[in-house]
């Protein structure tokens, strides 16, 4: 088997004595979507924020392409081409789409000033690909719909050539049509060879989009299964009971 894109090996983190993530191991291959499921507070978002550099792990090892990676800040994560789309949309509401897309990585003129015109032109290009109808380039993103805001966040990941994409409830705030748009986008990115960690509460959606699903409960990994091998009921019982029915049967 090829080297996984990402290996999370025995990752732990504790907040004031509570082990929010406790010895979890996961891997992710190029062109694969791995879903993370579990109740609120199961530790999915916390685990993924460790990979994104928002939290520092207190134990375990992260390997990218087989090599040990030190990720201590969002900046570090970006160096490994890890991009994150957060549950709480990580957009500055008062800025326009281009400023948000390039936030932290502004294009500059030779004199070192931010080049708004060029950034807007690039944003127009990429948004045309993702959402052809998008027009509100000169308005703060607070004026955008949920789907448009999400596409700005996704455009950011696509533009900067993410190899590893983390999507934390990317469709939670969206309507039916917009959810479908994001689903199509995930399939397209997967076809391009990105590795995607997807967090969602929607089990059916996960079974449709993911290659494998991992279930967490109380900070521990219950199990990881290929979607062909499990039913929706199997997954629900993993989430609720915290036991893997296939292992129990075996």
């Amino acid at each position: 088997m090829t080297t996984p894109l990402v290996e999370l090996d025995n990752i732990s983190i504790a907040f004031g004595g509570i082990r929010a993530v406790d010895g979890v191991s996961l891997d992710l291959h190029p062109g694969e979507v791995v879903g993370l499921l579990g109740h609120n507070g199961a530790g999915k978002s916390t685990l993924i924020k460790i990979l994104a550099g928002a939290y520092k792990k207190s134990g375990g090892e992260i390997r990218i392409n087989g090599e040990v990676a030190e990720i201590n800040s969002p900046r570090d994560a970006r160096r490994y081409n890890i991009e994150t789309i957060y549950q709480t949309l990580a957009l500055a509401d008062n800025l326009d789409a281009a400023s948000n897309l390039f936030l932290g990585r502004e294009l500059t003129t030779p004199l070192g000033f931010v080049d708004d015109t060029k950034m807007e032109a690039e944003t127009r290009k990429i948004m045309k690909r993702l959402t052809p109808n998008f027009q509100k380039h000169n308005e703060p993103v607070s004026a955008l719909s949920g789907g448009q805001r999400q596409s700005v966040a996704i455009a950011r990941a696509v533009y900067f050539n993410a190899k590893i994409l983390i999507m934390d409830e990317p469709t939670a705030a969206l309507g039916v049509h917009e959810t479908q748009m994001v689903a199509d986008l995930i399939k397209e990115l997967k076809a391009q060879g990105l590795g995607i960690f997807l967090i969602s509460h929607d089990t059916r959606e996960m079974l449709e989009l993911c290659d494998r699903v991992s279930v967490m409960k109380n900070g521990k990994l219950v199990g990881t299964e290929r979607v062909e091998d499990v039913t929706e009921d199997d997954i629900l019982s993993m989430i609720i009971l915290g036991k893997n029915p296939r292992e129990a049967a075996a």
Partner: protein
Amino acid sequence: MSDATSSKTDGLPTQEKRNFIQTLEVDTRLLGMIGAFVVVCLVFNVLTDGRFLTARNIFNLSIQTVSVAIMATGMVFIIVTRHIDLAVGALLATCSAAMAMTQTAILPEVFGLELGHPLIPWIAMLVGIAVGTAIGAFQGYLVGYLMIPAFIVTLGGLLIWRNVAWYMTSGQTIGPLDPTFMTLGGINGTLGATMSWIVGVLAVAAACWGLWSARRNKIAHGAPVKPVWAEYTVMGVVSAVILGFVAILNSYQIPAARLRRQFAAAGEEMPEGFTAVYGIPLSVLLLIAVAVAMTIIAKKTRFGRYIFATGGNPDAAELSGVNTRMLTVKVFALMGALCAISAIVASARLTNHSNDIGTLDELRVIAAAVIGGTALAGGIGTIYGAILGALIMQSLQSGMAMVGVDAPLQNIVVGTVLVAAVLIDIIYRKRIGAK
């Protein structure tokens, strides 16, 4: 940056019908503020039988506004990042005291530079700016890294720096200050007629070039631009305002008695019928330079972009790799430096350092920024708005003084205007549907 764009009601570049103002792409809130300012001026002009809009009063109004306006530009960044600085007036006093002591006592007595030595004013200013920046950075460190709320840090600072200044000078008035230093105060340093016109013409050229190159840049990237006539209209209005301002300042004649004293000081006799005008005060030039620099920082640098991003959504900024703690330190350090620059202007205008210099300036500065459209919730504010806010405050105050309104009533009116301005802004924002 957000409110500059939010005034446009649609994102479609051309299809929708657009009225005259929309085609010009001028910020409607800017127009509103200018409108309010014009109304204030006209009302006072009527009430004072035309004395308010004389060259002399406009000159005085300009030089009285400079100190608060300079600090207000820095307060915009502070408030945009969701902080507050209550210590600016006290910090101004400490910087002023440091500079006054440097030029009248420390340099002459400790370093043996003779009073009037050409280096004295410059060293004093550097000392002042260094003190202001260092104190500002320290307050920023307490806020950004030690997580003490800015309100508390600067409330403490208000007491501390006001009395550090008192302690340094033993409460005495320190003066007279260095003559070169005092040219930055206003009336003691003006450009005269010819230089003022040159500066005015250069400013017009720079403004038009700026507008035109922005347009070229947009076309080069295929972005929509407004019609050429709209571009020319904006250029024409900007040019008329700049040149009109210069013309007014250039029509304020230096009183004959003062001219005679100047000739006498040079050991000459004043020729019969000799006249001269003040022109643009150096302090006003300094304010314009600060305003341009701060606007460039706000709109054209990463630092400025991160200030607004952090104000809009601190978590998003942090997750995008912005070091928001260091940003807080930098913003407060910049505020400190601006307090020092204001201290130069304020003490130079008074020709000495007095113990109560800058008292209550923190409230004027915050009010100017807020009247100028800076939202206390963070993320929104403009430099030009803050300067206009300072100008409106100063106009109200000196206008009421000229009309002869009782002192308590003056403050009641200013307080009412502050609250009303914010209310109008809230209603306006709701109407255009922005947050």
